[in-house]
């Protein structure tokens, strides 16, 4: 099943803006859930199960924490090409959100700088 058109656009836009550092993702108490505030809304992306092929869910919440809209995606041989493509798009968003929330690029570059100083 394809994502509703607006959700599809939203996932694309969020991925683009996150790449440009224009959306700030934050960690939550759940190590595999990240959230970002965008104007009056909060979006969350969550992975369940395996790091390689776990299910992914994307939710839009209002400021009172009420889930307004959401999609989930799973990957597998038994899934259609569209379902697998949806999952890949959510995985791309999840990965970039995770890296931004954990500041992993900075961690890696700091570590590299430390190693270079040792060498």
């Amino acid at each position, binding site marked *: 099943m394809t994502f509703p058109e607006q959700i599809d656009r939203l996932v694309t836009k969020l991925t683009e803006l996150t790449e440009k550092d224009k959306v700030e993702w934050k960690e*939550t*108490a759940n*190590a595999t859930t990240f959230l970002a*505030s965008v104007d009056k809304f909060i979006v969350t992306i969550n992975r369940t199960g395996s790091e390689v092929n776990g299910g992914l869910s994307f939710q839009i919440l209002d*400021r009172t924490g009420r889930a307004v809209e959401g999609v989930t995606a799973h990957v597998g041989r038994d899934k259609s090409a569209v379902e697998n493509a949806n999952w890949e798009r959510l995985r791309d968003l999840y990965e970039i959100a995770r890296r931004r929330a954990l500041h992993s690029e900075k961690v890696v570059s700091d570590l590299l700088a430390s190693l270079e100083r040792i060498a």
Partner: protein
Amino acid sequence: MDFLAKHWGDLASIVGLAYAIYLAYQARTAAEQARDAARAARDRIFSLDTIKELTTAKMALNEIIRLQRLTAMTVPWDIVLERYGSARDSLVRCAEGLGVPDPQRQSIGEAIVLLSIMEESIERACLEEDPGRLDIAGFNQRLSAQMNDLERARIAIERAES
């Protein structure tokens, strides 16, 4: 003098009209002032309600941290979950309150979602009878950060109001 004698009635009408306009203006100004004062009083009441709810939420978070410092098996999870719920309810009332500046409304919204995620994790762990798997130290660290954010929100609301 001749002019005045001929037109004193017209002049009196003009003066009377001007005086009536002046009185109407004064009355309008007084009404506007009364309306502004009523609005200010109402906003102040709403703002005090929001601050009260923020304080209630912070007290609940404080208690959650205290309870979660017990070892996982001795934490009264049912009470902890009830406190999460009451903190969230207070924050929802704040998020819906009037006079909350947008950045603070946003951080209150984030706090609500973060609390929901913690609640869900606890519910799952309790249902699966495995609360030991919860990263309680991490939870408490996040709750402390949330309390700081809520305190900043409270100060900003007070400043916006004054």
